[in-house]
């Protein structure tokens, strides 16, 4: 589907393309040089022969005059050969020679010129190429001495007609070769990319397969695999640490809570001591809640949790949370509603996203005064998917926004309301876990708009049938 533009984008293809163009250029240059050099040499040879002929003829003319020159030309033209002569008057009427007529010659006398002439070959008249010189002999007579260079001319013509085709062929074959190499590289890279994708999705046990050829890709894959081994070991170590911290703290907390419960059971329900113990139990529970939240944030943030990812209809997850909180909002006279939107499907963990959204809604209800409203919306934005909770509460001052997602940070104004100060940290951790972003923004005219912005990669194509009935 996207192979064609992708292929053009591959480095391999580009490199090959540049190489092919350079190669075609060099081949053309080389051939031209060879051609030019060969022609120069051949022409020099021809010119030498002509010079020699002329020297000979000049001697004849010096000794025997025009008559002698004509005699010699006649004698030399008895046999058909490479040499061509023509002695004529100024009106180009032939005196002696082996050309049928004075050829069309451009250029002044004395210059080396090329021209076409006709002569019978195997009984047929053939136009051939010749190279020669015209001399003005005193007495209004012209002497043309030339050599037949038709073979050279044919070779030259063949060369000039085949050269463009050669270049075209080089370009076509080179491009095809480039595409082939590019595709091969793409396939190898695709394997690496697919494996990386699966690893990012949470399966750390995956490794890039090797072809066994020991080439650069194998070396790269091997290095990646070695890195992955290391990461997996570290993650496992981190998990073990988290697990032992959890275990080693929960066990004494468990005993503490058990003892408190036992003491409470032994005391009568009315006494002052009993209520002290009740309070101690409540404190313990708060401690446990904070510890659990911290642990969950740590695990989610580090990505060590292997929380199962699945395709979720964001609107359904939001509808469930809205449904859970609606009576609470109602009790506070705050209108809580989910705005209609397109069915957006993302890849995520339902429990974590629901918990993050629950925290946001919980906060919104806490800070929105009676008569206010909270709007939740799941929508597709330009660069991803947005799940937003917008309230009409006091909002968070811009300067405080970066701080509120830090652990245990609570704004002074909210110190007295219940909560651990970890709610937004967990939302941020859940966002991080999903490669998403938590953005806190103004909600005009007043209030806070908390947006979970999921990247486009988590967006899933909508299945043909809805996954689950939203009302269910």
């Amino acid at each position, binding site marked *: 589907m996207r192979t064609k533009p992708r292929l053009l984008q591959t480095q391999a293809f580009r490199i090959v393309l540049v190489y092919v163009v350079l190669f075609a250029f060099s081949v053309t240059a080389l051939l031209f040089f060879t051609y030019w050099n060969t022609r120069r040499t051949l022409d020099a040879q021809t010119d030498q022969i002509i010079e020699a002929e002329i020297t000979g003829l000049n001697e004849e003319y010096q000794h025997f005059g025009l008559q002698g020159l004509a005699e010699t030309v006649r004698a030399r033209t008895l046999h058909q050969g490479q040499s061509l002569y023509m002695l004529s008057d100024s009106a180009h009427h032939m005196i002696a020679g082996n050309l049928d007529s004075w050829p069309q010659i451009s250029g002044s006398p004395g210059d080396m010129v090329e021209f076409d002439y006709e002569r019978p070959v195997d009984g047929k008249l053939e136009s051939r190429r010749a190279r020669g010189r015209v001399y003005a002999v005193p007495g209004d007579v012209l002497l043309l001495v030339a050599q037949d260079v038709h073979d050279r001319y044919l070779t030259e013509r063949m060369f000039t007609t085949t050269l463009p085709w050669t270049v075209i062929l080089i370009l076509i074959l080179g491009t095809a070769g480039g595409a082939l190499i590019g595709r091969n590289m793409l396939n190898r890279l695709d394997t690496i990319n697919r494996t990386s994708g699966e690893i990012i999705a949470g399966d750390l046990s995956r490794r890039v397969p090797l072809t066994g050829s020991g080439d650069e890709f194998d070396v790269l894959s091997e290095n990646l695999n070695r890195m992955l081994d290391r990461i997996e070991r570290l993650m496992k170590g981190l998990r073990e640490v988290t697990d032992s911290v959890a275990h080693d703290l929960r*066990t004494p907390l468990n005993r503490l809570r058990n003892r408190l419960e036992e003491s409470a059971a032994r005391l009568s329900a009315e006494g002052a001591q009993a209520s002290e113990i009740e309070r101690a139990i409540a404190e313990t529970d708060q401690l446990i809640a904070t510890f659990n939240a911290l642990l969950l944030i740590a695990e989610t943030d580090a990505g060590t*949790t292997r929380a199962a990812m699945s395709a979720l209809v964001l609107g359904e997850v939001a509808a469930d949370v809205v449904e859970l909180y609606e009576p609470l909002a109602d009790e506070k006279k705050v209108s809580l509603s989910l705005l209609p939107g397109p069915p957006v499907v993302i890849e995520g963990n339902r429990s974590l996203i629901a918990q993050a959204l629950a*925290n946001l809604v919980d906060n919104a209800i806490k800070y929105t005064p009676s008569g206010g409203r909270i709007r939740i919306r799941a929508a597709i934005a330009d660069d991803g998917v947005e799940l937003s909770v917008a309230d009409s509460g006091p909002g968070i001052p811009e300067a405080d926004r970066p701080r509120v997602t830090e652990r245990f940070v609570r704004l002074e104004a909210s110190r007295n309301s219940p909560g651990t100060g970890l709610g937004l940290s967990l939302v941020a951790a859940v966002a991080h876990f999903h490669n998403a972003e938590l953005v806190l923004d103004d909600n005009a005219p007043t209030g806070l708009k908390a947006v979970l912005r999921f990247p486009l990669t988590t967006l899933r194509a909508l299945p043909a049938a809805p996954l689950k009935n939203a009302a269910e």
Partner: protein
Amino acid sequence: MRILVVEDDLEAQRYLVQGLKESGHVVDEAADGEIGLSLALSRPYDVAIVDRMLPVMDGLKVVAEMREHGSATPVLFLSALSEVDDRVKGLKAGGDDYLTKPYAFVELLARIDALMRRRMPAGVRTRLDVGDLELDLLTRAAKRSGTDIELQPREFRLLEYLMRHAGQVVTRTMLLESVWEYHFDPQTNVIDVHISRLRAKIDKGFQAPLLHTVRGAGYMIRAH
């Protein structure tokens, strides 16, 4: 009821055993996985409470082996490990419920009551009754003393769960887990608000309330 407790933290074990005995159960205990497994396979228990991390044989393995040998005893996992995926692992291994330490004893008690209740063959029920309140599971209609009660789908599920566990304490966490399928504690007690809404629908205007709050534990629906 016979309960098996497999727990290696002896202090926690003593507390569990004592609490369960005080609640009227017969309890056997084991401090490691191997002994726990052999007990589970040699005697019939109504519920087994198994710690996730045990010496000699891991809790997951114990339950997997129990299931392998055909034991259908409901298992409640206790775990001090971090939560997110351990619950799934525990349930996959054959556990029926999962409770993270530290837990409130009432929570544990409510959950094992629910597990034991589940084990009793109830047949396919199409109707639930508590006093004069009836719930038709087929038509999804609720009636009290013949008067129709309008319920939202979630309210119906909430009432259904409470009625299936009529006479038993049902904790907020249990409701959140089975009615909303959420395994986290919302910061605010949203369940209470849902319950009071439901209460307004089923108890308001009637002489005897059916839906009771059990202090420090949760809720219970019962006729008297």
